[in-house]
């Protein structure tokens, strides 16, 4: 399934003194099987944008289409859409409410009309794929650590088997280890199930590492929509929006200024390492060549 946003705009409290234009002129397509990163400064409209994806809010103008059908059409089943487009909010652990973890994860699938037994099968599958330890299944979700709560909450959405999974800063408030674990599992999910992932993040490093496509938001508009590598070549423009490119981008640009022939489009640490080594090696052989003469 694919989502399409056409000339979408969204305004909070229209017609009052508190009117805020959160989104303007949004045109974009979310196709099947893609890892999309969304980045933007606070207040740039990211959170509003992802709520449009599963019909939690209705655009002030423009259309949201799912497989070509307008999701705000009269006969459109928006509840069914919401189980196809899973949305994990920021701090999803604040939505936990059941007596035990397993029941909480079952909430979504049971709302889809599954029996408790069927829901448990889905729940266990989801909990396994986010790496939630089985011994805690019957614990109260409120006794878990922050990282485990987050996993349980993500599993709660995943158990509904969405075709598109949207995550709003899923790693906020986690330590680096927990962050890498969760993001790694999300990337793995995509490989296993072939679902589209939309990841809202503040970390350029994470986006560079996992995303195929990067959407940059600024003041309610889409500024860039391209591969992360391509976007990061605009690192100076990103800075004017209060954003930045990954740290390796800066290192590579500095090295290039100093005369080392590195590939500045590399945006991950291993990629940077390889291009630096290669450049050093090339410089080395050049020197040796000269020494021979």
């Amino acid at each position, binding site marked *: 399934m694919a989502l399409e946003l056409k000339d979408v705009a969204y305004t*909070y*409290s229209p017609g009052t*003194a508190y009117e805020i234009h959160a989104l303007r002129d949004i045109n974009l397509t979310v196709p099947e099987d893609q890892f999309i990163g969304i980045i933007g400064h606070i207040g740039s409209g990211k959170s509003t944008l992802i*709520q449009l994806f*599963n019909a*939690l809010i209705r655009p002030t103008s423009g259309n949201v289409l799912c497989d070509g059908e307008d999701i705000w059409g009269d006969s459109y089943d928006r*509840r069914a859409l*919401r*189980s196809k487009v*899973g*949305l994990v*909010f920021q701090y*999803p652990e*604040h*939505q*936990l*409410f059941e007596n035990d973890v397993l029941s909480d994860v079952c*909430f*979504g699938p049971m*709302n*889809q009309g599954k029996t408790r037994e069927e829901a448990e099968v889905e729940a266990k599958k989801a909990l396994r794929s986010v790496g939630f330890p089985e011994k805690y299944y019957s614990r109260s979700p*409120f006794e878990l650590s922050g990282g485990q709560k987050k996993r349980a909450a993500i599993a*709660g*959405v995943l158990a*509904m088997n969405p075709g598109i999974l949207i995550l709003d800063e899923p790693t906020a408030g986690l330590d680096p280890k927990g962050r890498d674990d969760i993001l790694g599992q999300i990337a793995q999910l995509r490989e296993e199930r072939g679902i589209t992932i939309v990841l809202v993040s503040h970390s350029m490093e994470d986006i560079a590492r996992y995303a195929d496509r990067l959407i940059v938001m600024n003041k309610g508009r889409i500024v860039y929509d391209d591969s992360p590598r391509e976007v990061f070549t605009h690192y100076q423009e990103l800075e004017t929006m209060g954003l930045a490119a990954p740290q390796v981008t800066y290192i590579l640009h500095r090295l290039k200024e100093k005369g080392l022939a590195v590939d500045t489009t590399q945006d991950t640490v291993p990629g940077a390492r390889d291009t630096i080594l290669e450049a050093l090696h090339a410089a080395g052989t050049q020197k040796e060549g000269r020494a021979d003469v």
Partner: protein
Amino acid sequence: MFKDITLGQYYPADSVLHRLDPRTKFVGTLAFIIAIFVFHTIPGYLVATVFLGSVILLSRIPPKIIFKGLKGVFMLLLVTLLFNLLLTPGEPLMQLGFLRITREGLTMAGKMAIRLIYLVTGSSIMTLTTTPNQLTNAMESLMRPLKRIHVPVHEISMMMSIALRFIPILMEETDKIMKAQIARGADFESGGLIQKVKNMIPLLVPLFISAFRRANDLAMAMEARCYHGGENRTQMKPLRYDMRDYIAYGILGGFLLVAVIMRVLS
């Protein structure tokens, strides 16, 4: 989802009325309410209308927004009118079965309508031009004499301002949790009463947990900053009367005086 609820309906604008000391506005609203009950003749109501009209003009708030407050009391207004119209004894004008409209009833109903409308309009101008926090400050300051008889004035006003501060936070939280649960397929709309209450559990449990967590955090933060009640506590922005406040008090005094004189003379 909750944007229609206006609690603390402050309307930001730059006007004399917004800049007035909140105590002046509070006392002024009381004076206005007293005055509209003192007036009882048509010239009297004309004076009140002129007064209210100039205040509305001064506030720079679109009249549309001011009169929106009347919608909420429409039913009350209607009931009061009907009762006054039908139940006041006196010289009969019309008889419809057992319903009788009297001349006295008609004038009484008219007066009540004017009074109620002016009362609601007057007090909404106060709440529209004053932030809830300013209002609690004003009340704390005006109730200070009650401290003598051991009324915990500071504590009451602190509780009020915290409660007011938390209303938008908790509404936002409710909205967020609601959306998160809707995203998981929750249904808050359909079903009978019992089903609806049951459906609220996924909303209420996280909401209560979050409210308690926030209360705990706030208590901790206040304690960390050595809060220990109102004793010897000063304010960052103490309320201070300005020239315009004295002028406003002067105008109010004159207005009340006119009301009393007209009442005595007629």
